[in-house]
């Protein structure tokens, strides 16, 4: 019994579910489809007349570009057509349901010396051209297209789409791959021989190992497939392990590409491990998966090359030579073909790293790792920190020395870009990955290779530590070292400077001076300089994904974060003054910043206001002097006293009395303006406003101790939430130092949330926690180092996280003990228990647990609710998809980037537009909103009694004191309007942008219980137009227009 239980641990269960979903079982209908298609192909090939004369005329462009000197033969039908690949070993993994067939090129069509000068490749292609022509005329085949074998343009293959299809495999096709079994003498294709006469340097020919292997690969295809079939036959677990590996690799598009892994190689590696008894019959698929990853990631054997045959001895010298020719050497069992000859060095280290990361996930999270390994998409656009796209359409530089010599020009160009960037960026990066996909299927290869540059070349860069990545000065070689200086100068050009450094050293260097808030652009400048200098590319063809979203964070052209040091300094002064207050009965013992602006996670940290100074005005008053100022929240604690009242009302009143005293003291001692209402006290200092709050621990102790009933919680809400805020603030502050990208990512995320009108659904703190989760639990990624990558991962996290069934535990420094985790798990179960059947209305819909809040009470207890979360997820998903596209596809249009933050209004029942010039901070508005659906229900005029800027008369008046008195603290009409609306219209749900949007979305709220519905039946029946009019009335002077987008359906 125990055994059964352990055998079915959650991970195994999940894996078997995954296999059910992914593994394409060969049903009879599928088998029939494959057989029918193959026999259709056979039939049409049989119609080709034997002895047909084939000349280069069939595909002049191809033969020319490949550089073949001779290419004529008489057609003969292939003697061998067999299904191979994943279908033959029963390991097709959805969604890629293609089936490969091998087609043996007959020996009669080739001459003995055709391995020379690309003649083989030319004939191979011509042979396929003939077949293609005949396949096209077959009635049971709908489409025939060109593709290339592992992106190698000189080795095209045919994709054959049958006319009939079945629902199991909707995009089914058959790939026709020619083989060259025993066409040539293997010894002629030795790695050290030259077989392309054009390949020479200073008269002496160079070896052509890649070209040779390209032919050898075709010669060994059949045997290798036979070998795989034998290994996998009757071994179900091995096939399943292969599927798991494929799923894993496909989620990682940076290693499942032409210069790294493919399904065939994974099968080969598995069978290597099987023949070397690292995998045996007692193992389960997941174990094999783990062993394989461990082998890929950690084995020392890769450095010496892998050889299938154990008995055949290879001299050490040969081994060395093999490894010299190729970064990875995996010799097959029959000939001595290197099956991994396409794998590049950088790709392989990337692969090893991925394998190691996955093993870490497995070791760390147990069954929680399932999602990280198999279902999280670690694709190119979310993996790296910095992206470069090169548009090389029609760029002749790429193939200036011919398309194909030993290697193809595109691969050489990839390498060139890689080397340039690696040299230019040095230790600023951890890794640079360059990928250029060439074969977009459907291209007409007959015309040659010049159209293969349509796709952009993409570079992904992982940054090293931020101190290194954003370093301002790079120090080069010493001035004395002549050769090195020359090299350095040659590489950097006019950017190289001779400098004397503080330690007395005189050395060559490059300097990338910039302001603090644009430091993240240093990398961009270096890349641009290097690429423009060495690749003769124009700047317009270089797109770098770094700063495209910065526009949403700027305020009047600069990033307001640049005032952060100033703000911190002011806060310190405030703290000092508060602590030194003597004329208040209890001393202030503790001052803590609570506001996001004081931990640089606020979208718009305030700039110093010229009228909020103690004396005079701080600088000249500009034309656009704001008449409002946002206060920043600061928490203070008083020294203990036994004489606090014991009931909440009096406690709060006493607090207010204290705050008034403090404000008064600051005002009289330091001349700081104090602005007070019954509930809050704000003091102004050096251009900033601070709202003071007192945390009373005793009230808190009452809540935290066991006697806290529901009622008590409600009563002591003020202190409890203040406590949460303070805990949260100090926790988040701890993230800023180690993760400099954290601040900008949070700001982008908040901006996104607000601009899609989710301000009411997702608290600021929730966003901060979600982003914090990305940073502290970065696996299966590396910690994000750039704002755009972080932002994309935030969107994906929101969209993909399993909110219904998993709590999100934000464990900052691994400081949660197992018992804490258990407590969280129990709390979570409790919150989900009552809703076993109905998952629609769970609360909290988003369970966020931290060390200070193990029951998710602090931020998400009331919002988002399930309905809001659903909406959020949908928005996040579409934004994430758009952003992914923007990163990887060639779209130089900046408008498309704006779409990420523009919200469509057709998802609301009604929309209220506000007067943009009555918002307290009009410059926070991203885009003025426009509604062009539905009909206008009401229009309103703007009030004359409020303006966000001081009028020119006021400014001219020169009466500073008067102006200062006019400065409004924390006046936010939007907030006031929303409160009024919430009070008056309970049937309407509001969506708004608290950062300063000019639109409010309305949806008719039908989520209420039945009882409530009955109560408000009359209200419901009220016609929507009159409700909307009321909505407009409530915001007179502020509302520009009210639009009815959808009339509510009668249910």
């Amino acid at each position: 019994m125990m055994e059964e239980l352990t055998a079915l641990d959650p991970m195994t269960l999940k894996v078997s579910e995954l296999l059910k979903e992914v593994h394409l079982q060969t049903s009879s209908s599928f088998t029939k489809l494959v057989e029918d298609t193959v026999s259709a192909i056979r039939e049409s090939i049989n119609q080709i007349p034997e002895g047909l004369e084939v000349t280069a005329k069939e595909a002049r462009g191809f033969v020319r570009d490949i550089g073949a000197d001779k290419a004529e033969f008489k057609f003969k039908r292939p003697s061998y057509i067999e299904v191979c690949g994943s279908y033959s070993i029963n390991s097709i993994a959805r969604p890629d349901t293609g089936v490969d067939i091998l087609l043996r090129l007959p020996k009669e069509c080739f001459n003995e010396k055709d391995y020379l000068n690309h003649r083989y490749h030319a004939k191979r292609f011509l042979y396929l051209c003939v077949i293609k022509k005949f396949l096209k005329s077959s009635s049971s085949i709908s489409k025939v297209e060109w593709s290339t074998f592992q992106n190698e343009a000189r080795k095209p293959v045919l994709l054959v789409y049958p006319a009939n299809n079945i629902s199991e495999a909707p995009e089914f096709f058959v790939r026709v791959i020619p083989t060259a079994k025993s066409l040539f003498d293997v010894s002629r294709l030795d790695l050290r021989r030259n077989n392309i006469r054009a390949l020479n340097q200073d008269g002496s020919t160079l070896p052509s190992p890649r070209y040779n292997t390209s032919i050898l690969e075709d010669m060994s295809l059949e045997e290798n497939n036979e070998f795989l079939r034998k290994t996998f036959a009757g071994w179900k677990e091995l096939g399943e392990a292969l599927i798991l590996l494929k799923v894993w690799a496909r989620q990682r598009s940076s290693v499942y590409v032409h210069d790294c892994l493919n399904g065939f190689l994974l099968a080969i590696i598995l069978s290597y491990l099987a023949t070397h008894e690292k995998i045996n019959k007692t193992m389960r698929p997941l174990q094999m998966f783990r062993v394989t990853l461990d082998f890929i990631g950690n084995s020392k054997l890769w450095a010496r090359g892998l050889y299938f045959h154990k008995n055949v001895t290879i001299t050490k010298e040969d081994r060395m030579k093999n490894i010299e020719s190729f970064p990875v050497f995996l010799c097959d069992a029959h000939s001595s073909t290197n099956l991994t000859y396409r794998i590049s060095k950088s790709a392989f280290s990337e692969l090893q790293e991925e394998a190691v990361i996955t093993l870490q996930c497995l070791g760390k999270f147990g069954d929680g790792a399932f999602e990280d390994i198999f279902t999280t998409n670690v694709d190119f656009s979310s993996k790296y920190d910095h992206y470069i796209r090169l548009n090389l359409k029609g760029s002749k530089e790429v193939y200036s020395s011919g398309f194909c010599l030993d290697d193809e020009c595109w691969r050489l160009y990839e390498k060139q870009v890689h080397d340039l960037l690696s040299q230019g960026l040095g230790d600023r990066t951890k890794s640079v990955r360059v990928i250029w996909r060439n074969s977009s299927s459907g291209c007409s290869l007959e015309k040659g290779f010049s159209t293969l540059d349509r796709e952009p070349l993409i570079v992904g860069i992982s940054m090293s530590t931020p101190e290194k990545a954003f370093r301002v000065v790079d120090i080069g070689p010493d001035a004395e070292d002549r050769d090195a200086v020359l090299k350095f100068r040659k590489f950097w050009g006019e950017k190289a400077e001779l400098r004397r450094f503080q330690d007395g050293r005189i050395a060559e260097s490059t300097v990338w001076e910039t302001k603090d808030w644009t430091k993240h652009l240093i990398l961009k400048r270096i890349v641009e300089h290097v690429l423009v200098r060495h690749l003769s590319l124009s700047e317009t063809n270089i797109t770098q994904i770094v700063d495209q979203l910065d526009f949403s964070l700027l305020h009047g052209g600069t990033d307001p974060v640049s005032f952060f040091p100033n703000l911190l300094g002011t806060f310190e002064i405030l703290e000092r003054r508060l602590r030194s207050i003597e004329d208040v009965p209890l001393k202030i013992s503790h001052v803590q910043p609570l506001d996001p602006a004081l931990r640089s996670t606020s979208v718009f940290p305030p700039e110093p206001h010229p009228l909020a100074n103690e004396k005079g005005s701080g600088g000249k008053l500009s034309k656009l002097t704001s008449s409002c100022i946002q206060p920043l929240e600061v928490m203070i604690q008083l020294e203990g006293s036994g004489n606090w009242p014991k009931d909440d009302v009096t406690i709060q009143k006493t607090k207010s009395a204290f705050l008034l005293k403090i404000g008064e003291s600051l005002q009289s001692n330091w001349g700081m303006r104090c602005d007070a209402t019954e509930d809050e006290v704000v003091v102004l200092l050096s251009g900033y406003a601070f709202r003071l709050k007192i945390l009373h621990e005793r009230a808190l102790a009452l809540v935290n101790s066991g006697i806290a009933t529901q009622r008590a919680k409600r009563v002591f809400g003020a202190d409890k939430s203040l406590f949460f805020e303070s805990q949260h603030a100090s926790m988040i502050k701890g993230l800023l130092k180690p993760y400099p990208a954290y601040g900008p990512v949070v700001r982008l995320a908040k901006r996104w949330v607000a601009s899609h009108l989710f301000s009411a659904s997702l608290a600021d703190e929730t966003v901060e926690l979600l982003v914090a989760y990305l940073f502290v639990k970065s696996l299966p990624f590396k910690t994000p180092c750039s704002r755009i990558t972080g932002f994309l991962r935030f969107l994906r996290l929101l969209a993909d996280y399993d909110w219904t069934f998993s709590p999100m535990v934000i464990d900052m420094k691994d400081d949660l003990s197992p018992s804490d985790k258990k407590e969280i798990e129990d709390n979570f179960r409790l919150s989900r228990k009552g809703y076993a059947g109905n998952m629609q209305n769970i609360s909290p819909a988003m369970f966020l647990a931290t060390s200070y809040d193990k029951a998710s009470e602090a931020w998400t207890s009331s919002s988002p609710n399930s309905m809001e979360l659903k909406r959020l997820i949908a928005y996040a998903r579409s934004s994430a998809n758009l952003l992914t596209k923007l990163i990887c596809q060639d779209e130089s249009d900046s408008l498309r980037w704006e779409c990420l933050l523009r919200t469509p209004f057709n998802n609301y029942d009604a929309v209220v537009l506000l007067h943009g010039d009555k918002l307290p901070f009009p410059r926070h508005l991203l885009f003025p909103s426009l509604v062009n659906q539905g009909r206008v229900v009401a229009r309103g005029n703007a009030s004359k009694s409020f303006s966000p800027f001081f009028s020119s008369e006021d400014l001219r008046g020169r009466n500073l004191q008067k102006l200062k008195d006019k400065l409004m603290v924390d006046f936010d009409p939007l907030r006031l309007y929303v409160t009024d609306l919430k009070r008056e219209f309970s049937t309407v749900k509001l969506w708004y942008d608290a950062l300063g949007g000019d639109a409010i979305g309305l949806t008719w709220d039908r989520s209420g219980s039945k009882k409530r519905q009955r109560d408000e039946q009359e209200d419901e029946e009220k016609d929507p137009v009159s409700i909307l009019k009321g909505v407009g009335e409530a915001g007179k002077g502020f509302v520009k227009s009210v639009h009815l987008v959808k009339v509510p359906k009668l249910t």
Partner: protein
Amino acid sequence: MRNSELDIKRMKSKKKRRENEVQVKNEEESHERNAGAGKKKRRRETKNNDESGEVVRVNEGNTSMEVEKVKKRKKRQRKEIVAKTAPVEESDQFDDGSSRQKSGKSNKSKKDKKKNRMKQEVASERVDIQVETEKQEEDAYCLSSGDEDCSKGMKKWLTEYHENRPGLKVLQQRIDDFIISHEEKLEEEKKEREALAADGGWTVVVHQRGRKKTTDPESGIAVGSAVPIAKVDDITTKKKRREVGVDFYRFQKREAHMNEILQLQSKFEEDKKRIQQLRAARKFRPY
């Protein structure tokens, strides 16, 4: 104001006041007050509504000019709508931002549908315009800027903003007043209760909430009954030690073992259930 100062100072001096009954009473009181406030509010709201009703009526009173304007606007609007049906493509581009989530990949058909829907809407709009001529003044109903009206909108918020800031002195006075009246009330209530109790010859005994104070809140020094409690603890632990361990008898071990298995089983069942739910949510499809 002096009073609040006193109040605060009293805190500093370590006089202890026993206010055990206060809490209960206070809650009752606040309830009452809340109820009262609620009523008041409701009353105020109805008043507001009346007022707004008046305003609306006034507006409707001089609609002759308004109607003209509205008619013109309506015409313009109609034109706008007609113009807007054409560039559906444009609006689609906007949709890219976020509204894709529903449209998915079958864009074309949806686009067509959308077009149709738009057309229909426009058509119905036209019908609306033709048939409901009376309703015209309701369309695009005009809101005043509200500068003269303090009950709603911007003017109200501004007035409230200024009303809420009467100055430090006044605020302090208010707090003092509140605390004085609050205390008076408490005092009165206490007296009343005492009087009541004395009448019937009873004394009111109130349940004391929370733990007994064992430390002085300011100095952290243990006070009162702290020591005896520790002693009691000591005794109980000693007693416990003499008791038999939980795994002394074989049956205990057996039971523990069984329990463990049962727990594992239930966890396993739970996992299975969860996985079924996940499957239903299509969480196992990696593409």
